[in-house]
């Protein structure tokens, strides 16, 4: 079963405490080192499936082990996950299915609906020769239509022509081991032309950029647009895991600094939120333990208002009782004010 990359692991264990599923189980089975050892020793371990694919272990690894490439090769997506991922590729269809799903007796759809209580119709918006192609990301378009509207409002207020492109970047597929499908999806985005591709979901930004797509994160793009906007709030920032890998937290903080926000840092802002994409639907107990640990870190910051630039993180953080906002939501406030 070896995938040819696991041999660079020296078994030092430096990844253990960086891994959310190890931290809550403290079992080698649910640790990056254990998963790599399982690949090495050809053990079909349940740990392959319990990985949240946050890749914090890669940042902690002194030997540069390419964990993501190892784990995605040995994970096998279940039919349930394949179905869910293919729905995400078509956000409008997903919205219809979820709406209809109110009366459906599918266990999965019921679970999805528990976290996504109010699925919304993805926003369609097109302009001729757009300067910005706004890519909400599949889950953002379904769960946070308001954030897409807010982003649009801000960009329009800056006098830009915008088109919204609904779809999926393939990160969900990749994390479940559907590597080829993920590549197909991301390749489509490589060919997007006629405007700057701006991504509203920061983990998608990271995935796209790693796959060679010319894309700017919303935070990076708006940095160049900010003027006298001010937001008087005290808040803390959560760094979505993949976004953190390419250092997007810097741009997010830079935007907040320019807005004059009082930023109170939480402990380990990049610690996994517990969503793990759709992970929390399949491993509710581990996910709940990770969410609770994350919530503790946020509570200790003393603020209830959290900036999250990625939708699955936002969902579970709201689920934990926090007030969650995207940068676009904050920026839209400044537009309303100037109109008043």
């Amino acid at each position, binding site marked *: 079963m070896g995938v040819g990359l696991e041999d660079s692991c*020296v078994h030092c*264990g430096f990844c253990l405490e960086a891994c959310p599923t190890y931290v809550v189980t403290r*079992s080698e089975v649910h640790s990056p080192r254990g998963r790599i050892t399982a690949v090495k*020793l050809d053990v079909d371990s349940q740990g392959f499936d319990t990985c949240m694919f946050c890749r914090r272990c890669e940042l902690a690894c002194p*030997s540069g082990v390419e964990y993501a490439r190892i784990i995605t090769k040995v994970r096998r997506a279940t039919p349930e996950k394949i179905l869910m991922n293919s729905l995400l590729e078509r956000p409008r269809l997903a919205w219809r299915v979820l709406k209809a799903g109110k009366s459906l007796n599918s266990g999965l759809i019921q679970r999805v609906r528990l976290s996504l209580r109010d699925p919304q119709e993805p926003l369609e918006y097109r302009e001729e020769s757009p300067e910005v192609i706004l890519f909400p990301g599949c889950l953002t378009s379904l769960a946070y239509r308001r954030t897409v509207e807010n982003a649009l409002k801000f960009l329009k207020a800056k006098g830009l022509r915008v088109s919204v492109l609904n779809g999926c970047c393939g990160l969900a597929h990749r994390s479940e081991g559907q590597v080829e499908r993920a590549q197909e999806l991301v390749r489509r985005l490589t060919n997007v032309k006629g405007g700057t591709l701006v991504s509203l979901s920061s983990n998608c930004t990271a995935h796209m950029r790693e796959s060679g797509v010319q894309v700017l994160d919303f935070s990076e793009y708006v940095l160049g647009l900010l003027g006298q906007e001010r937001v008087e709030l005290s808040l803390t920032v959560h760094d979505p895991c993949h976004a953190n890998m390419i250092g997007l937290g810097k741009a997010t903080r830079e935007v907040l600094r320019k807005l004059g926000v009082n930023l109170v840092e939480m402990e380990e802002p990049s610690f996994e939120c517990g969503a793990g994409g759709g992970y929390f639907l399949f491993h509710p107990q581990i996910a709940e333990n990770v969410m609770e640990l994350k919530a503790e870190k946020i509570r200790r910051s003393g603020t209830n208002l959290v900036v999250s630039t990625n939708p699955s993180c936002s969902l579970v953080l709201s689920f934990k009782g926090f007030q969650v906002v995207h940068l676009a939501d904050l920026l839209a406030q400044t537009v309303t004010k100037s109109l008043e």
Partner: protein
Amino acid sequence: MMRLEEHLRKIVGEPWVISGKERKLYAYDGFTAVEGDPELVVLPGNEEEAVKVIRLLLERGVKFIVRGSGTSLSGATVPVGGEVIVGLSRLNRVYSLEGYEMEVGPGIANVMVTKNAPPHLFYAPDPSSYVVSSIGGNISHDSGGVHVVKYGTTFNSVISLRVVLSNGEVEDLSYGPFLSALPIFVGSEGTLGIILRVRLRLYPRPKTRRSLFAVFPDVRSAGEAVVGIFKRGVIPSALEMMDRNSIKVVEMSRYRAGIPDVGALLLIELDGDEEEVEEQEEIVNGVLTDTGGARLSVADEGKVWNARKGAFPAMGVISPAYLTLDCNVPRRALPEVLEEVSRIAKRRGVFIANVFHAGDGNLHPLIPYDPSSPESLFRAIQASNEIVKEALRVGGVPSGEHGIGIEKVKFMGLYHGEAEMRVMRRIKDSFDPRGLMNPCKLLGGCEPKTEVTRWLWEWD
């Protein structure tokens, strides 16, 4: 009678007993040259469960190994004889914090002790694996770290222990005058009893900490600087050395810190009051000039320290496996021993990188080998043998902080001699008359079953 596995599951709950092929994930720790095969793995979730598990194993006469985070560099938790692994990683609570003392479970990671301490205090012993290695494991290996030179090894930071003895009794041990029961547990590698709870000593954080870095044309002159610093009365809070090979490896890894290609780098940390540190710095500067060193100014000091701390696993960029020794030698012998180490490397045809605690003469020659080639491992072991012998020849000891485990068993006899070994075996026998606790480790006494264990345990 209920099957052992079933009984263990009843105590700790279904998910916390690992059997089947998954148990192999506990086949080795930070020492990967020997692959063990645990019969079962059990992960109790609290003290009560741990005591029940241990009592059950003792009752049934089952051999077992207590394991923390599994980062031992000497293979002290490798189940070479099919033992049951009792993992205490879930016993990671902070029980209390009072004055300069913190009571914790053995599974807590070293780094979490300082994280949980008030800002004016810190936990001093910091092995390079401190982000992950457990306090229970640190105690069992008497682990050191960069701050040993001033604050002592783990030994100096343990106030009391709660242990389970081989009769199943739970005892609280603390220091007393005369034949004190506590010290013998520190460094006993789980061969005498099971550590359940620990009271640790915290130190006040010094007002000032200053890092100095100095480059040298060769390891000999760097070694002379180390001796000189102490001779002039400065006790640095850390004094580390990296040689050309280890700098090269680190600069190829994630820990690259922009260290120039030089014969040796000294990393020096001074702590205390501002005035005291100023004075120490002046003296150190004098020593550096006298020994041919030059101060290196760096943009990011943290990066250079991380380069040092990550140097072992950074070896992964050039080789997936390595042996690392940790013999201590008197400081004055450092220049001589380092030169001999490089001669040994040449003679044996191996690559050796030195990155170590120079301040307390604790060598760490890293010897990479190719795990798919037994011959390459054999050469690495042969080189290790020569290095340890050289260390003993100049008045050193076989292990400073990584423990004996399965890696250094044969050096025990070489260092201690037969009479001392007999005394130690008698002590082991009185604590563990049936030999159930971590057999084969520390004092050896097992027949090698594989070629590699034969190379490690027997002289040729």
